[in-house]
């Protein structure tokens, strides 16, 4: 128990003193996960609108498939991306292995089902007439999709937060394809796993507490936005 306390005081100390290494790692975590959440949203939100409002054969199967992938293990995606981008892999020539870019890619794959599934669920509360109305008033397909998403904005926002949360808290992909390289691909979660293996439990706890704080702050900010 004393370690929890030490971890907490260490965390506060590291945050208050703006410890450069910790700040750098936290910043990188944020940067990578925000990027993957935004990019995945840019793809999944319009795609969710398309899947929800279009009628096509196999739609039900597709939706349940998407839901199945909610709980896909991060290491499975890590492995997939690794095989794809390693030197011997089909995309090895791009030389992206162990870079932040490939981490973003892996996290996007990870959170795409969540974003897509939750967006579709969010849209089930939107009357189809909303879409017809938008189009009848001259909205393009994309503008109509924005209208539908805006109608379900709270639930859609929740989907994005979920996706971001999953991205910033995962360790499997970051470790396997990022490689936990200091000053380049080391993020909070991989740093925690490293510090634990080094035996520095206090620093691990401190980083864990910083991770939770980031999640908390983002939730508070988004809640504020929603209330406006």
């Amino acid at each position, binding site marked *: 128990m004393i370690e929890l306390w030490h971890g907490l005081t260490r965390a506060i100390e590291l945050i208050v003193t703006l410890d450069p290494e910790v700040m750098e790692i936290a910043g990188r975590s944020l940067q990578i996960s925000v990027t993957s959440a935004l990019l995945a949203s840019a793809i999944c939100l319009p795609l969710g609108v398309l899947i929800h409002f279009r009628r096509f054969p196999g739609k039900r199967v597709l939706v349940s498939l998407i839901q199945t992938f909610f709980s896909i293990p991060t290491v499975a995606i890590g492995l997939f991306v690794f095989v794809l981008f390693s030197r011997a892999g089909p995309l090895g020539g791009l030389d992206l292995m162990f870079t932040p870019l490939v981490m973003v890619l892996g996290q996007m794959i990870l959170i795409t089902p969540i974003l897509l599934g939750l967006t579709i669920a969010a849209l089930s509360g939107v009357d189809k007439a909303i879409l017809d109305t938008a189009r009848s008033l001259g909205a393009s397909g994309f503008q109509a999709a924005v209208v539908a998403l805006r*109608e379900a904005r709270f639930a859609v926002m929740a989907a994005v937060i979920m996706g971001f949360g999953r991205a910033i808290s995962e360790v499997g992909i970051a470790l396997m394809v990022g490689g936990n390289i200091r000053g380049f691909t080391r993020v909070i979660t991989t740093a925690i796993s490293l510090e634990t293996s080094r035996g520095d439990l206090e620093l691990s706890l401190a980083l864990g507490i910083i991770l939770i704080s980031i999640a908390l702050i983002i939730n508070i900010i988004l809640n504020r936005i929603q209330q406006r």
Partner: protein
Amino acid sequence: MPFIETVNLGQKYGERDILKNINLRVERGEVFALIGPTGAGKTTLLRLIDLIDMPATGKIYFDGVDTAESAKVRLATRRRMAFVLQKPVVFNRSVYDNVACGLRWRGMKGSDLRTRVDGILEMVGLSADKSRNARTLSGGEVQRVAIARAIAVEPEVLLLDEPTANLDPVSASRIEELVTSIIRHYTTTIIMATHDMSQGQRLADRLGVMMSGELLQTGDTRDVFTLPRNREVAEFVGVENVIDGVVVSSEDRVVTIDSGGRFIEAISDHAVGVEVSACVRPEDITLALSRVSSSARNSFDGEVRWVVSMGPFTRVEIDCGFPLVALVTRKSAGEMGLAKGQKVFAAFKATGVHVIKRN
């Protein structure tokens, strides 16, 4: 070249045809009403014209351009129109934003946008509510927002689907006034659907009668009401007396129709032996207590079966070998003391009879 033209337009729902071979032409600037009972396919047709749905068969030409050409053409064409749905929904935003959205999608912003939206809100009487969330409005107000955001984009074509169907009488007449003033102040082409044939008569220049997915008749409002093409149209447009018979003589376009031993004279080109229906509008029938000599060629004696007072008019059902409904002023009904069982004489002119060939 008509402004909007549909050629053999058809739509299916699954295997079922819900719209068959619609050939409609609407000219620029005219007010055209699609009338017909619920389920006739009016909404389906409007959705096709607004290019929201894709037709199963047929073509739609807008200003001479085939709208099936490309998605780009369809969007550009749709932006020249505005459609007020039968059950309008408002966006979960302010009244102002609801009215502004169509303009924003067309790239308007800044003071142009504000001026235009404020003007429209003024016109529909919603200026005071512009910051309210549109979801909190009443049914009539929602309908006004829906019309306001449609006319805000100054469409070349305004499509209205049953604009007053779901409203209380006060809201309904207010919306009808609004539509009337739009017709007066804008040169917009209007295509509206209504199951209320009198509304169609009041607002439209031309009518199209739809039933079971087919466009049965189009024409000037007066023509459709007085010269229905067939029995279904006749019944829908309020010709209550449709008497079946056979042409037994024809002379100089004056025909005699035998209906169970009673003979009706009318003006028609149908030849002897043709099975026809004689249509007589109730308001064209005069009633008297004794046989009077008049210019009316047709005069039948009968017995009053039912008398119903309808505001300034009284509706009288008479049995004179065939059933006949007459509409007389309340005043004359009172003078005659019309009551059930009374013997009366019903008279109408040969020119008041519209003869339709039966299928």
